[in-house]
C-alpha cells in the first residue's frame, strides 16, 4: 500500500525522524572524549537515502557546516559500493571515512556511516561526523597553515568497515592509532561515535515498527516535497534580480595574496541561483574548499536567513548552485584543505549574506566576524612530563541588523560550539591568560553597530611549544551593510623575549616557537555595522561611551557631532 499518509502522520513522522537525530547528537556529545565534540559540539548526525544519499533528516543541534556535507559523503559511499570498490553493507557494519574529496570537509572531520536494514533490506543510512582533535599530519591538531598537499595534513581514510557486523576491526584501529597524536583517548571517541549510531538505529526501528516501511517511505518523500515548497515560498519573497558580492580570504597561508570569492545570486521566481564564476583558482596552501563544503556553506547561510526551513534535501532543491570548477571552491586531490570547514566556508556564507543583504535587508545582518579563530599550541609540559595539544577557538562580533546591534563574542556561523573556560584551559595546559576581554572599539559603526570581538593574551608558563594560527579577516574587517562601517580586522601578536612579532600572513601561521614567558595576543574581528552611523540614537552612543565600548574621541569621530 503506497497510499499517501495524512497530514498528521507526516508531521508526526517528520518530528520523529528529527528526534532520532537529536538523540544521536546528544549521545555522541555526552560520551565523547574529544573536547571539540564534547564541549564544542563539533559533530552532527543525520539520516540519508539509499538511492542518492539525499538528506532525510538531521539533528537540530548538529554543527551547521555539516548540514549538507554528509549527504555528499553518503552518495560517495553508495557510488563506490555500486562500482564494487567498497564492500557492500551488512547489518551492524560501520564504515569510517574522512576523505575530504568524498563529500567531506577537512581530515579531522571523521564520518561514521551505518546501514539501516529492515527485514534484511537496506532502508537508509545513518551517519555522523565528529571532529577528532588530531588526525596526524605536520601540525598537532591538523590546522596546518602551510601544507601544500593533503598528505601533509594527516591520515586519509577511504570508506572502510571499521565495524564488521558489529565487531571492531582491530587491524584498521591499529593503523589509525599508529598515525595520530594523543591516540590513547581515541578509543573512547570511536566507541562514542559508534554507539550514538546504534542509539539512532534503535529509535528508528521503533518508528518503522509503528508506521511500517511503506508509510515511512511515503512520508519521507512527501517531506522532501514540502521542504522544497517551503523554501520556494521563502524565495518568492525575494525580489527578482541579480545580486552580487565579493568576499576575501586573507591568504592561503603559503602565498601571501588574498583569495577572492565572487558570487552572483540570481533570484527568479521561486529559485535562487548561485554562481561563483570569477573566484580565485585553486591555491597552494590549505585554504581550498572541497565542493561538498562549498555547497554546505551556501545551504547553512540560507538557513541562517530562513531558520524555519526543515533540514532535508528538499530544502536545498530550489538552490541552484553552479559547480565552481576551476576555482579554489572546488578543490581536487591533492590540494590541501584544512582551512575549508572552519574558514573558507564562512567566507562563502559571508558572500551569500552580503549579496542577499541587498535584496532583503530586513532579514540579513551585516557581516559577522566569520572566523573560528583557531589557535593551536602543541608542546611538552615538563611539570607533567607529557606532551599536549591545545586548541583555543574564538568568537567575534555579529553584524548589526535592522532591529538591533550585533551580538558580541558570537560563535562562528558554521558552528554552535562553546569556547572552553579559561579556568579549564589553565587546569589542563601550562598557560596563564593575562586577559580575556571584550575588544573595545571593534564593532563596525552604524545605526545598529556590530558586536565586539574578544581580546585575549595568553602566556606560556613552562617548557617550549609551537603555536599555529588559522584565522581570517586579518586583512579586511567584516563588511558593514546599508551604509554601516566594517568591523575591526583580526590581529595576532606574538610577544617573544621583549619583541613583538606579527605573522606575515596576519591571520595564519604555523610552528611559531615559544618559550616560557612568551605571550600570544589575539584580537578577533568585530561585526559589520548596519545603516549609517550618523543615524544612531545619541543615547546609545552615550551609553557605549559610558561602558567603555568606545572612547569619547572614537565616538565623536565614528558617530559624528551629536555624540
Amino acid at each position, binding site marked *: 500500500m503506497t497510499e499517501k499518509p495524512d*497530514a*498528521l502522520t507526516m*508531521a*508526526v513522522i517528520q518530528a520523529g525522524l528529527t*528526534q532520532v537525530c*537529536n*538523540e544521536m547528537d*546528544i549521545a555522541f*556529545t*555526552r560520551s565523547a*572524549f574529544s*573536547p571539540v565534540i564534547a*564541549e564544542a559540539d563539533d559533530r552532527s548526525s543525520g539520516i540519508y537515502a539509499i538511492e542518492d544519499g539525499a538528506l532525510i533528516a538531521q539533528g537540530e*543541534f548538529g554543527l*551547521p557546516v555539516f548540514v549538507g556535507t554528509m549527504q555528499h559523503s553518503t552518495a560517495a559511499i553508495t557510488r563506490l559500493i555500486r562500482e564494487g570498490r567498497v564492500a557492500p553493507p551488512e547489518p551492524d557494519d560501520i564504515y569510517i571515512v574522512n576523505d575530504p574529496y568524498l563529500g567531506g570537509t577537512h581530515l579531522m572531520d571523521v564520518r561514521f556511516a551505518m546501514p539501516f536494514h529492515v527485514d534484511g533490506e537496506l532502508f537508509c543510512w545513518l551517519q555522523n561526523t565528529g571532529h577528532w582533535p588530531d588526525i596526524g599530519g605536520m601540525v598537532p591538531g591538523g590546522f596546518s597553515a602551510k601544507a601544500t598537499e593533503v598528505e601533509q595534513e594527516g591520515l586519509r581514510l577511504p570508506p572502510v568497515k571499521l565495524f564488521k557486523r558489529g565487531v571492531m576491526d582491530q587491524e584498521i584501529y591499529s593503523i589509525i592509532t599508529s598515525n595520530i597524536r594523543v591516540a*590513547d583517548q581515541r*578509543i*573512547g571517541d570511536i*566507541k*562514542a561515535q559508534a554507539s550514538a549510531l546504534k542509539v539512532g538505529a534503535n529509535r528508528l526501528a521503533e518508528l518503522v515498527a509503528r508506521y511500517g516501511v511503506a508509510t515511512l517511505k511515503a512520508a519521507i518523500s512527501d517531506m522532501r516535497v*514540502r*521542504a*522544497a*515548497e*517551503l523554501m520556494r*515560498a521563502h524565495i518568492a519573497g525575494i525580489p527578482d534580480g541579480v545580486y552580487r558580492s565579493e568576499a576575501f580570504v586573507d591568504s592561503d597561508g603559503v602565498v601571501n595574496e588574498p583569495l577572492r570569492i565572487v558570487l552572483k545570486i540570481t533570484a527568479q521566481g521561486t529559485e535562487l541561483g548561485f554562481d561563483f564564476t570569477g573566484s580565485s583558482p585553486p591555491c597552494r596552501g590549505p585554504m581550498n574548499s572541497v565542493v561538498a563544503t562549498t555547497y554546505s556553506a551556501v545551504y*547553512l547561510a540560507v*538557513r*541562517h536567513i530562513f531558520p*524555519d526551513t526543515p533540514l532535508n534535501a528538499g530544502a536545498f532543491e530550489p538552490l541552484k548552485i553552479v559547480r565552481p570548477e576551476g576555482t579554489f571552491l572546488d578543490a581536487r586531490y591533492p590540494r590541501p584543505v584544512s582551512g575549508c570547514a572552519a574558514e573558507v566556508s564562512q567566507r562563502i556564507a559571508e558572500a551569500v549574506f552580503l549579496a542577499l543583504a541587498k535584496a532583503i535587508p530586513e532579514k540579513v545582518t551585516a557581516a*559577522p566576524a566569520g572566523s573560528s579563530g583557531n589557535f593551536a599550541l602543541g608542546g611538552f609540559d615538563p611539570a607533567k612530563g607529557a606532551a599536549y595539544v591545545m586548541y583555543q577557538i*574564538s*568568537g567575534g562580533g*555579529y*553584524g548589526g541588523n535592522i532591529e*538591533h546591534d550585533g*551580538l*558580541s*563574542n*558570537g*560563535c562562528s556561523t558554521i558552528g*554552535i560550539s*562553546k569556547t572552553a*573556560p*579559561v*579556568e*579549564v584551559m*589553565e*587546569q589542563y595546559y601550562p598557560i*596563564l*591568560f*593575562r*586577559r*580575556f*576581554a*571584550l575588544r573595545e572599539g571593534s564593532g563596525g559603526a552604524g545605526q545598529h553597530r556590530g558586536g565586539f570581538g*574578544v581580546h585575549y*593574551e595568553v602566556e606560556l608558563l613552562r617548557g617550549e611549544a609551537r603555536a599555529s594560527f588559522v584565522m581570517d579577516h586579518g586583512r579586511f574587517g567584516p563588511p558593514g551593510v546599508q551604509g554601516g562601517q566594517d568591523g575591526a580586522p583580526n590581529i595576532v601578536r606574538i610577544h617573544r623575549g621583549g619583541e613583538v612579532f606579527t605573522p606575515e600572513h596576519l591571520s595564519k601561521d604555523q610552528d611559531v616557537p615559544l618559550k616560557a614567558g612568551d605571550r600570544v595576543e589575539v584580537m578577533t574581528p568585530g561585526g559589520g555595522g548596519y545603516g549609517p552611523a550618523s543615524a544612531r540614537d545619541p543615547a546609545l552612543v552615550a551609553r557605549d561611551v559610558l*561602558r567603555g*565600548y568606545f572612547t569619547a574621541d572614537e565616538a565623536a569621530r565614528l558617530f559624528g557631532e551629536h555624540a
Partner: protein
Amino acid sequence: MRRVAGIDVGGTFTDLLLYEAAAGEGGTVKLAKIPTTADNQAHGVIAAIEATGVLPADLDLIIHGTTATTNAVLERKLARVGLITTMGFRDTLELGRRTRPKPYGLFGTFEPLIPRELRIEIPERMDARGQVVTALDEGAVREAAQKLIADGCEALVIHFLHAYANPAHELRAGEIAREVWPNGYITLGHALLSEYREYERGTTASVNAAVQPILDRYIRRLQGELEARGFKRDLLVMNGNGGTVSARLVARDAAKTVMSGPASGVMAAAATLGQSGLANAITYDMGGTSTDVALIHGGVPEVSAELTIAYGLPIHVPMVDVRTVGAGGGSIAALNAAGMLTVGPHSAGSEPGPICYGRGGTDVTITDANLVLGRLDPGKLLAVKNPVAIEHVRAIVDAKLARPLGLSIEAAASAVLTLGNMHMAGAIRMVSLSRGHDPRDFALFAFGGAGPLHAVALARELALAEVLVPARPGLTNALGCLVADLRQDFVQTLNIGLDLADMGHVATVLAAQRAQGLAINADEQDEIVETVVLHGADMQFRGQTHLIRVALPAGEVSREALQTLFEAAYFRRFQVTLPEIRAVLVNLITSVIGKRRALPLASLIDPDGRKSTADEAVVGLRPLFADGVWHDVKVYQREMLPIGALLAGPAVVQQIDATTIIEPGWRARVDEIGNLRIVAGLA
C-alpha cells in the same frame, strides 16, 4: 491542633493548602486559590490564608514558594549590582562562552546582569592549583567598593579566577568590602558554587546578588505583615533543590529560590508516589505557555547543577532538573508556507490568549482544539470572564486549518492535539533518554491546569503503562511546599585521577559537608523526623569534559568501589566500557535532607463528600470526540468519586482545578489515597 500552610505564589494564582493535624493519624485540609497580587505578593499570601477562615496567628508553620526572584530575573527588574573581579577579566560575564541564542539565525542580543560600567578590575591572581600569582591589592578593593557605592550599587559580587581552588583572595576582599558596604548584600563567587568555569560561577553569583535585595525585602515585608497579624512561628521558603530553608537564611543564597516553583511540584509528585507505591515517574505539568517535565527515579527527583534560566544565564547550583518546553495550552496551530500543519513554538500567551478566552484571540490554540473536541467544558474555563460561543471557535478552526487541509473540523482539531502531544512526547523522551532511562519504565504524573487533559493521550504516544493524576492537580506546587524537606547541598571540586586521589581526604571532605548541612538543619529540628545524608561523586574518564554522577554508599568508600560504581553508571548510560582509560574524580557532593513529617495525602479530598458508588458521582453526559468519532461520555465529579471506584474510558473527570480525560480503551481507578490511576486496557 497543629496547623501547617503551604503557599505557592504562581504567575496567575496564589494557591494554599492548609493541613490541620488532628491527634493521631488523621487530619483535614483546607484549600484556597486566589489571584496573585503581582505588585506585592505578600497581600495575596495573607488573603489566601484568610480565605480559609484561619488566622495567621493560629498557624504553626508556613512554607512558602515564591516567584519573586524568578520574575525579577525574567523581567530584568533587578537590583543594581557592582562587580569587583580579577585584572583582565572584567568582561567574563558579558562574553559568555561564545554562543548565540539559536543554532540558526544571527539575530538576537544579550545583556549581562551587571553592566560594564559597574564591573571593576583589581590586581590579584591565583593559578589553577590555587597558588598566588599576583597578591591581592587590598587598597584597590576598598577603592573599587567605594566607587561602586558612589555609582549607586546596592549589591556587590566579588568574583576572582580560580577561587574554587583557593578562596583566600575572595574572602579577604569580602572582609574589606564589608567595612565600607552599607548593607549585607555581598556575594562571593565561590560561596554558592565552588566549581570551575568562571562564566557559570560568576553568573550564578551575579544572579544571586541581583535578586538578594528583592527577596530580602519581600520576605521581611511578608514576615512583618504576618507578625502584625499575630503569626509568631517559623516561615520556611522553598528552594530550587526541592528543599526549604528558614526565612532568616534564605536571602543569603537567594539564587537558589529562582526556579523553585517547578521544583515544588516535583517534590509533591515524589511524596505522592511514595505513598502510592510507585518509584519511577515522569512529572508532566502543562500550563498555558509552557510545559515542565522532570524525572523521578527510585523515588528521588533528578537534580542538576547545570540549569539555565534564560539565554546566557546559567545558574549552576543543584536544582531539581525541570525541563521546560514551549508547548502549552496557548501554543498556536497554523499552516506554514508549504501548507504543513505546525503547532508552536509561538504562543497566544494569556493576552489575547486562545480564541475561547474571548480576549480577541484569532489564532487556533491547543486549548481551542480541546474545546472543539469536547475535552474542555466551555462553561468552566478558569480565568475567563467573557467566553465566546463554541461555534465561533469552530468556524475559525474550519477556515484556518480544516478546509486548507481537506479535513473535518474535528479531524483538524485532533491533528492539532496529536502534533502538540508529539512535541511534548519528544521533550519527555529527551529528559529520560538523555539520562539513559527508557520512558516506558515510568508512570506519567500529570498535574497543572492542562496536564490531566493530555496525559492519557501522551502516555499512549509514549507507550507508558500508567498515568497518575493526583487528588489536587491544580494545587500541586502548594502541596510541594507542604511536603518539602529541609535540604542542604554541597559541591567541592577535586578534579584528580582516581588512582592518585587521597581517599582519606575524600572522606574528610564528605564528612565536613555532612557536618555543615546538619548544623544548618539543626535550627529547624522541630520539623525533622529523620535525617538522610546522600553522598555522591561527579566522575569522568580522563580527557572527557562531561560528568556522570555516581551515588556513594554511606560510610567510607574505597578507591576500588568508586571505580566499580563509576564504570557501572557509565555503562548504564552509554553501553560502553572503557578499561583502557583512567577515571577522574571531579566533584564530591553531599545532600543533607531533613525529612519532615509525612502528610496523609488521603486528606486532600474530604472523605465526607465522596459518594458510595461511581455512578452517583456522574454529574452529566457530554459529547467527546476521540479516536475519530463522537462519543457521549459520562462526566464524573472528582471529589464525589468513592475510593476504589473504577471508570472505563472514554470518560471525563472534572474538578475545580483540572479536567482529566480517560481515552477510549483506558480505565481508571481511584486508589487508596485518592489518586486517579489510569492504565491501558479494559477491566
